[in-house]
């Protein structure tokens, strides 16, 4: 029996999305499953954005907080550090300080932070709210305007607030993250609702909701795989936006990235363990289909970039 490689080609293709202006970057565009360049084209590497926030990262565990000591008290110096010292290709600014249970900063304050950060960096900016449905719709509308002409990604639009956020992204020419909770049908439905408002599907990014390794990652993994299969095999256009893995925020919350080795000797060194936890979570998202990742620890990012190198060449 002679071996014939069972290669598969698809009619569908993931949309190619370009963000930023000065140092613009593109991702997506492939017509095959993740890293299956042996049977189609994969024009771009996935992009990893460094996460920063509008308030000091006091809630981040020591291992990752200490990396940004001295720069993280101010979002501008933090962003510069990521661009200049860590060679970030993109930056994700999370406006967590606007959450009503946190510092409860107002839209005007958020606007100022966004403008200041944007004038300090050349790489593309992803602007995230605090994941508070009502507050996000106020805050993201304000910052979308402040960021106009910079071709940012704003998010996340959810079922409860997509109308205002979509309108703002549309008015100021940004890309938009649509997030739903771990269900391919919900995700599809939200993308449809958003495009029905006239928002071009080619400017969407789907976030099916990330989960950390050990804390439900298999659900995100399978939802991503199914979305990608629908995009390729069924040529389903609403499922063809690139996928986001918002990795860092989920990973640096779990016990495995916080418990000391003294507390749990069988888990080994906290530093390596937590960095690996973020890197493995990211790798799983990539293999499942994510084209855009948001991460926190530079050593995890470096390892994942090397992983991508090996997968691409």
């Amino acid at each position, binding site marked *: *029996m*002679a*071996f*014939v*490689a*069972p*290669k598969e080609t698809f009619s569908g293709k993931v949309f190619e999305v370009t963000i930023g202006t000065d140092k613009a970057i593109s991702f997506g565009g492939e017509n095959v499953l993740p*890293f*299956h*360049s*042996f049977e189609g084209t994969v024009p771009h590497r996935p992009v990893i954005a460094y996460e920063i926030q509008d308030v000091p990262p006091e*809630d981040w565990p020591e291992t990752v907080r200490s990396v940004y000591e001295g720069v993280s008290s101010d979002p501008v110096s933090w962003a510069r550090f990521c661009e200049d010292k860590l060679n970030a290709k993109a930056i994700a600014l999370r406006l967590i300080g606007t*959450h009503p*249970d*946190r510092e409860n900063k107002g839209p005007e304050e958020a606007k100022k932070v966004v403008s200041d950060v944007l004038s300090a960096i050349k790489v593309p900016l992803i602007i995230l709210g605090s*994941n*508070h449905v009502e507050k996000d719709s106020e805050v993201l509308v304000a910052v979308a305007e402040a960021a106009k002409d910079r071709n940012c990604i704003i998010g996340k639009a959810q079922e409860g607030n997509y109308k205002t956020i979509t309108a703002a992204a549309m008015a100021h020419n940004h890309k938009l993250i649509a997030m739903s*909770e*771990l269900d391919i049908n919900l995700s599809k439905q939200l993308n449809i609702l958003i495009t029905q408002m006239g928002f071009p599907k080619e400017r969407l990014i789907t976030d099916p909701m990330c*989960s950390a*390794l*050990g804390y*439900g*990652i*298999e*659900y995100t*993994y*399978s939802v991503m*795989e*199914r979305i990608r*299969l629908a995009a390729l095999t069924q040529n389903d256009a609403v499922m063809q936006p690139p996928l986001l893995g918002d990795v860092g925020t989920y990973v640096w*919350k*779990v*016990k*495995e990235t*916080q418990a000391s080795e003294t507390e749990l000797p*069988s*888990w*080994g*060194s906290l530093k*390596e*363990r937590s*960095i*690996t*936890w973020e*890197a*493995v979570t990211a*790798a*799983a998202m990539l*293999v*499942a289909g994510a084209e855009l990742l948001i991460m926190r620890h530079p*050593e995890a990012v470096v*390892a*994942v970039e*090397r*992983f991508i190198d*090996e*997968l*691409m*060449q």
Partner: protein
Amino acid sequence: MALTGVEIFKLLPKTNCKKCGHPTCLAFAMKLAQRQASLDQCPDVSEEAKRILGEASAPPIRPVSFGSGDRTLKMGEEMVLFRHEKKFVNPAAFAVEIKDTESDDRINSVVEDVLSSEIERVGQKLRIDAILINNVSGEASRFEAVVKNVSEKAPNVPLIIATGNPEAAEATLKIVASRRPLLYGANKDNAEQMANIAKTYKVPLGVKADGLEALSSLTEKIKSLGVEDLVIDSGAMKAKDIIEHNTLIRRAALKKNFKPLGYPVINFCQREDKILEALIASLGVMKYSSIVVLSSVEKWKNLSLFTLRQNIYTDPQVPMQVEQKVYKIGEPRPESPLLITTNFSLTYFIVSGEIENSKVPSRLAVMDCEGLSVLTAWAAGKFTAAKIAQFIKESGIENEISHRELIIPGYVAILSGAIEEKLPGWKVTVGPKEANGIPAFLRQRMS
């Protein structure tokens, strides 16, 4: 690929003699197709038909195992390409490489690491499954000494005997054949000798070739020599080649019923950079590897890999639920806070993660709501005041805690009065709507 009734019928004698207990050959064929009859019930079936039917009913990826006793490692038998279709069957085994050129001290310490690698996670015992001993020296005598030493120090750990030298293979198998190690293995230059050794010592055989075409011809050749328990290596080392080869191998086996590649796969994932090694090994776990070979077994790296494997190999059909009970987070004292939520497993993961994050030891009462999230369960009438009150009473929690305060999710604030009515003596406090508000909420109460 299973044959249809009609396809099977074509292979039968077509005499309708009824000796099989069925009225016609066709009726018997239909029963065979549904696996409700077995071929030996027909006394007149041809050898040719037996062969074809036997092959067609064999699983597309051959079950192969190595090791012995309760540590036996099962591989193969996979039926799908994507985990949402059906549960992945036999979790990838993690094997650590020991080179026979390394010092005895280093070898002994790696063996120690393997023996102490077991941890428990979500009720499962997870560990480094096997040791691969690599005959890097090329010498038979040194190899034999190392295999002997390792096998004595780790008497229950499945072994992979990695040598291309038939003499070294035979010398070591004389010592450890009864433990059914995997002999790795055969290549185009030594295939006959290795196949003979595998046959003599009754051990499975690893087969390595350069690329999928060469690999297919080599497994066919070895099969024709009478050895069928094979583990295959396409020579893929880089991540790009691992994903390509493993995908094509699994597709060929499952979709084309291509037997020469219908075997479990071994991948070598060793890297200088240990975090990168964890990622390459992760790729193996996600993309169809049956044996993942590592260079070291640091506890921190093991934990990520064990967890990923456990996650990827869970059953996607099982509803996303956790067991109804009161979970302890941190080390709660009698006066520590008590929160309640539903048993949708993601709700549980997120809420317990946030409580963990708050560093405030607490109890989390997880109520069976058939795997629905808080809002959906409330809307469906499964997370109601009466049911919550009943659960709290029956849980026996009143004997464990010194207070009578229950923190409920912000989304069901409306229930607080009704719960207080049904739970006399209790105070209900409304917590945050979203889980990410929990740390601030709990910490504030402490101050």
